[in-house]
């Protein structure tokens, strides 16, 4: 178990580094080291979790959104971790396992980066942020 934990944590860290060193404005959810060795949860600003999953359909991932439940509330766990309501809908949970290979980690990182970049191009929030607008100060027209 100790050797396995170390092995998986190293792969998880590799996945994290490849993603977070390539993309800006992505945030790790939870503690950096005091977490399960096989778990990674990242919020990608300006893109929505379910849409991201659609962009990497061949990879088994999970989003923190509770869109499929009766309410539009995001994950209560992320909320408890202090993830803001704006980022709660933008998170992806990665789970690595005993049979995950380094190749799969590299592939996943590459595809995630591609999908995030594509969705940011489609995002009005990303556009507003690039224009220097502080999204927290915007008065949203909620119906």
């Amino acid at each position, binding site marked *: 178990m100790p050797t396995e934990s170390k092995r998986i944590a190293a792969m998880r860290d590799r996945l994290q580094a490849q993603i977070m060193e390539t993309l800006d404005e992505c945030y790790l959810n939870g503690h950096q080291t005091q977490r399960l060795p096989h778990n990674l949860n990242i919020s990608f600003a*300006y*893109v*929505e*979790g*379910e*849409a991201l999953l*659609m*962009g990497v359909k061949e990879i088994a991932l999970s989003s923190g*959104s509770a*869109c*499929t439940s009766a309410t*539009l509330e*995001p994950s209560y766990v992320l909320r408890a971790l202090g993830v803001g*309501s*704006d980022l*709660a*809908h933008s998170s992806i949970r990665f789970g690595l396992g005993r049979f995950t290979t380094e190749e799969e980690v590299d592939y996943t990182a590459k595809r995630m980066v591609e999908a995030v970049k594509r969705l940011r*191009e*489609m*995002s*009005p*929030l*990303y*556009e507003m942020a690039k224009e220097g607008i502080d*999204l927290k100060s915007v008065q*949203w*027209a*909620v*119906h």
Partner: protein
Amino acid sequence: MAYSEKVIDHYNNPRNMGSLPKEDKSVGTGIVGAPECGDVMKLQIKVENDRIVDAKFKTFGCGSAIASSSLATEWLKGRTVDEAYKIKNTDIVQELNLPPVKIHCSVLAEDAIKAALEDYKKKASAGAAQGEKAVAQAK
């Protein structure tokens, strides 16, 4: 989540994704939704002689939200401003086969259409009022 083929198609091949210049007098911009809800749509129309000649969208939201707004821009192009008001969220639900849990995406798209139309009308009447004022002052 079972997405219809049409939703997936709009996601992979979004129609009219992009932006029009907001300051342009012939452009109406509607921004609806909120990041905390996981859904924000920006819809823009360019109107010439009362007809919508161009439409663009950008969306923060799930595949169904992206498809709803993409479809909206397709339907808007070529319609007059009055015809555009007739687009209902139920038409979008039917066209995209949206399941009950995603109906709110179509509602937001209809709101975005109306917001863009209202913005255009506001700018058009302000422009007309300014024009009248200039004419009155010139007299």
